[in-house]
């Protein structure tokens, strides 16, 4: 979780990721941020996030993103 937050803050220092739970639905992250985030997460955790994983539910909060990472690491 710490690492995910660190990556998020590096991409968008202006957002309060610990409390935001509508990152995609609320339009906080744009598609450029999402792609940058995917690249970083893939490298950091040695996973492969696919376009089919890009549903708002997976990216709306730092917690959700962390859950997605953990799920993909298990596979």
């Amino acid at each position, binding site marked *: 979780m710490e690492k995910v937050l660190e990556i998020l803050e590096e991409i968008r220092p202006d957002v309060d990721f610990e409390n935001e739970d509508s990152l995609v639905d609320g339009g906080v992250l744009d*598609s*450029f941020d*999402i*792609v*940058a985030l995917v*690249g970083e997460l*893939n490298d950091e955790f040695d996973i492969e*996030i696919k376009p*089919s994983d890009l549903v708002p539910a997976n990216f709306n909060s730092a917690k959700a993103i962390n859950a997605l990472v953990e799920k993909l690491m298990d596979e």
Partner: protein
Amino acid sequence: MSYTSIKFLIFVTVTILVYFLFPKKWKEYKWTVLLLASYVFYLFAGVQYVGFILFTTASTFFGALWMDKMSKSSKNYLREHKADLSRDEKKKLKERTKRNKRLVVALILILNFGILAFLKYAKVLFMGGTGDLLVVLGISFYTFQSMGYIIDIYRDTVPAQRNFLKFALFVSFFPQIVQGPIGIYSSLAEQLYKPHSFDYDRFRQGFLLILWGLFKKMAIADNANIAISAVTDHYQAYGGTTLLFTVILYAFQLYMDFSGGIDISRGVAQIFGIDMMENFRRPYFSKDISEYWRRWHISLGNWFKTYLFYPLAMSSLFLNVSKNIKKSKFGSTKVGAHIAKVLPTSFASFIVFFMVGVWHGANWKYVAFGVYNGGIIMLAVLLKPVFESVLKKLHINPACAPYTAFRIIRTFILVLVGYVFDVAPSFEESMMTFRLIFTDQNLKVGYGEISELGLSKVALVYLAICAVFIFIISVIQERNAATTIRSTLIKKPAIVRWGVVYLAIMAILIFGVYGSGFNAADFVYAQF
């Protein structure tokens, strides 16, 4: 059968009656009324087109079942042999299934987009003519919608539909077949199949939305279209002032035409209990071009984002380019880090806009339109730090109202530049338009030309009043985005409600362009 015709009005009324009077004991078959109505609507356009939509329906339906079978048998095998397979063997099996599914999805995509491309490009490429070989009703929209479904099946994000007729309804639903919105299977399909009972509130809201759409299309867009087609018919005859006027009028006309048509579609669907996605969110209030494309033709933008932009931008090729820049010496600088983050992604978005341009038709002006929009977005993203530092140096607060107003006006001008490619008949003539707009401004000549375009002075003043009216409505909508004007309206006393309905109907009857001997203009987007 045009959405603005009396025939359509009768057709919708009959369908509504049959749907809501459908016997309760067979209510799980209620959706067949919508399917039948959709095919009747489609047959009105011409029997010769039905083959195309049936081919797309069948190829997509069976392709999806085929992939579904592959996934299921692979999953079953894995479950049964869980104990005796190594991790590597399991991985290999999964990869093989994925590869086979990829072949199927590629085949379906190539076949269906192939037909679309052939119809749009064959005449220009092989026969030396211009325009489409054949304009099949709604082919772009039902092709996009079905191909979205087949990609969802490939990605395993929705279950495959096992009833052919149900799937045929998803592809052909008549309110959206002409010009969208392009529905997504996961949010639209179940709504189509569910037996909805009559809801007076929904009926009133849908009715008001249809009325609003008819007003925008018939009483505004079709009036403006008279002047625009007068110009495009003899494009070379006009000076810079008239051309500038035409482009601005076109911005108004296209928005009223397209969003009016979508309002009619959404209104009809709403009466049946079906919520279709919004396709426009006051696009001319956008503060930059990317925002504009998130608010204009939203369903098309979403389609391209989900099925083309993300797969491209997230492909290993694009991500590796980014990674390599970041690792290089250049990547350790501030500029380098920014480039590494946005270059591959902005290139992917450039490709998307290029494709959107190409989809509009076989004409260089559409390619130019795509390159222009993609180019602006790419530059805006790449140069973002530069703009930010300039603002800082000038001590401008990016959130202040004057700067926001400046951004909105600037974006609208950029949109107008894009529209020049749309209005002008060819690429050469669009270049000529830019030249004349900057070098040939003459108010007196312009006034003389504009008054000869088939619109009387009164009609021009009327259009100007409409523009102000739409602007005010848009500001109200923008400030109360959470609710709609019509849901506020239905809570008002009967006299207010009926007053508004009466005024709207009178406006359509008095100012609407229709009548015998006059064919209401086709919806602009029906031709794509």
